[in-house]
């Protein structure tokens, strides 16, 4: 008979997921299943029949964590389909929003939720409340960083959650002088908050390293938008890095053609792969993938290299990479603002028949939107793959690797052990609402 342990719900993540550990009758681990149990809402189906310009504000509702990224990936895809190039000032606004949103998201996941894995004991008592008791200054810094990201979302996007300003051809709102002043003022406060986060990150680095060294994580390929000296999440060439660190550039449309989404029977989300890669070969996305492919060079990056030499495969390094990204993103936001953003943020555009791909770096990694429209701009086909869908198979394998390692020490996993397994999953920062929209559909092919 097969025995099983179910970890449910996996806590401190967005949405509903479970981990099932399966054992044979001699109590050896037979396998693991990372189960996404949140339901399919059907975005790709009901987006069909909508006008292309309506898609960004609908697509933002896919996720309550990375709304700006969904809006911008969607608008990029529609613009690609219609052959539209938005004005330079609009692109600056979008980059500003993209980088600031990343700060918001990482502050929530790393500072407020995941960090307690390394700060709080006993295990299974983590989370925001435990953190408030343990280190209120750090929690307040996390809130400050979130507030900053949300303010930028509000001022650029019209509202902080599910923004509305991106439209094919640009943005419906330019920044006013007062808006820019507000952001600059908040930037100062958030840079101070960032110092507190950095300080604590150095303090928990031994714990993080210990967690990383406690098991042998999986080796995978990494997929990211190419990162040069500066972080760039809005628009850069899509790049695949193999296990040895060799990089290959991918064309967005080729990538779209090669993307396959085989279903698995135990999870509502399929395990995507690229045709041409060997079956079962994994492809990860996210902060770890981005830093592996980057030329960033801050002091924090040098510290990272000492602890986690690159190319790095250990999932726990994701946390450190998130902190680096927050700092780099604040720097880029300041640069964009110093550079100045003009007010020519929109052009009138004409729809046309076509297929467009929009790929951005969401906080959790590559986010892919693809739409086909007819000649008046009505969507006839929609396909969306989110970072957590890309990562799902890797999450399962990392959790399995951790469980195997722990069972070598203690064949009957304790509650503390199970939290260790959850910690690996948390290092990926899975986002379940997002992941559930990844299967493609086509209208009228019932």
């Amino acid at each position, binding site marked *: 008979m097969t025995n099983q342990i179910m970890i*449910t*719900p996996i*806590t*401190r*993540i967005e*949405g509903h997921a479970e981990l099932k550990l399966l054992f044979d009758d001699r109590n050896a681990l037979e396998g693991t299943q990372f*189960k996404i*149990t*949140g*339901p399919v*809402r*059907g975005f790709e*189906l*009901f987006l069909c029949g*909508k*006008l292309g310009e*309506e898609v960004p504000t609908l697509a933002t*509702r896919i*996720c*309550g*964590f990375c*709304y700006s990224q969904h809006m911008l990936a969607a608008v990029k895809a529609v613009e690609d389909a219609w052959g539209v190039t938005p004005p330079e000032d609009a692109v600056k606004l979008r980059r500003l929003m993209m980088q600031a949103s990343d700060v918001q998201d990482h502050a929530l996941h790393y500072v*407020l*939720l995941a960090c307690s894995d390394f700060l709080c004991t006993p295990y299974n008592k*983590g*989370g*925001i*409340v*435990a953190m*408030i008791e343990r280190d*209120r200054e750090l*929690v307040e810094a996390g*809130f400050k960083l979130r507030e900053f990201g949300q303010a930028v979302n509000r001022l650029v*996007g*019209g509202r*902080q*959650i*599910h923004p*509305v*300003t991106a*439209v*094919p051809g640009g943005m*419906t709102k330019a920044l006013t002088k007062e808006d820019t002043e507000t952001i600059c003022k908040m930037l100062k406060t958030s840079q101070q908050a960032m110092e507190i986060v950095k300080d604590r990150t150095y303090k928990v680095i031994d714990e993080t390293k210990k967690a990383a060294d406690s098991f042998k994580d999986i080796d995978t390929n990494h997929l990211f938008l190419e990162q040069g000296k500066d972080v760039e999440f809005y628009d850069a060439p899509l790049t695949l890095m193999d296990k040895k660190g060799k990089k290959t550039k991918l064309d967005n449309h080729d990538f779209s053609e090669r993307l*396959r*989404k*085989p*279903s698995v*029977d*135990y999870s*509502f989300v*399929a395990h995507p792969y690229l045709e041409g890669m060997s079956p079962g070969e994994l492809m990860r996305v996210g902060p770890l993938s981005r830093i592996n492919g980057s030329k960033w060079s801050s002091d924090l990056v040098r510290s990272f290299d000492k602890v986690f030499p690159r190319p790095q495969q250990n999932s726990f390094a994701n946390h450190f990479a998130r902190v680096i990204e927050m700092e780099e993103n604040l720097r880029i936001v300041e640069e964009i603002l110093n550079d100045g953003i003009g007010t020519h943020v929109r052009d*009138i555009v004409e*729809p046309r028949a076509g297929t467009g791909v929009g790929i951005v770096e969401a906080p959790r990694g590559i986010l892919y939107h693809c739409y086909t429209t007819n000649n008046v*701009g*009505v969507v006839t086909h929609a396909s969306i793959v989110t970072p957590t869908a890309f990562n799902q198979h890797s999450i399962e394998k990392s959790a399995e690797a951790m469980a195997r390692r722990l069972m070598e020490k203690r064949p009957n996993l304790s509650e503390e052990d199970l939290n260790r397994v959850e910690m690996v999953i948390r290092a990926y920062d899975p986002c379940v*609402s997002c992941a559930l929209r990844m*299967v*493609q*559909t086509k209208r009228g*092919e019932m």
Partner: protein
Amino acid sequence: MPVKIATLQLTGCAGCHLSLLDALYDLPELVDKNVVQILYSHMLMDAKDLEENVDLLIVEGGILKTDEEEILIKFASKAAKVFALGGCACHRGIAAQGNFIPRMDLLEQYYVKLNPGLNNKIPTDDLPEYFEFFHGIDGTVEVDYSLLGCPPDPTELRDAVLAILSGKEPSMPAKIICDECPRKRNKDPELASLDPAKRLISVIPDEDNCLVDQGLICMGHATRAGCGAKCPRAGAPCEGCLGPAIKWRAVAPNDLAAYVKRLASQPGNI
């Protein structure tokens, strides 16, 4: 005595939870001063189940699967009051757009028909079952407070939560979005209905005048106030996410008639 709270996410996007965090920006203080005590919130902390009774259960998201109905009933039975937070929990929200397609067809298309050559199946192994329709929570449990919005505006949400924490009923403005909107309305709505509708991509509206007057479809005058008309201020038409106005202004039915005409004139909407 702190107010004991649990938050539950059903089928939703987590945006309402984030709006709650935005609203309660002083959460560290509220927890420290023992104003609130959070007992369950799978997104924010590690408790795997709700083990004791709470004063307030905040529910985000609607119901699309059988397990969601079960956990909602179980949690609500341990809660003195239930707060339906956001469009999905209140009256179905965006996921209800999937209700126009028979559920099994939707899943069949999702997994199988559009992935030819992959042997895909609708996943079923130890997974919850779907309902035919995505629906709000009020048909399943008794709801004491509700707040619409996608997600609810943090300022309004803060007022509502603070009112509930101090044992009062949250108040709702009887106004409409137009009352909060700085844009000037110049045309009679019935006359405006004679103008052809314009698409958002084909007009760059000025900052001062009503979006409807400039040919766009804006839901502001049929929508309850409460957000400060954020979208029209940002040059984007109101989507009506705060739900219908409590007291409609006399002009609203005419405006709605105008909209039906305008919507009918748009491609894809017939």
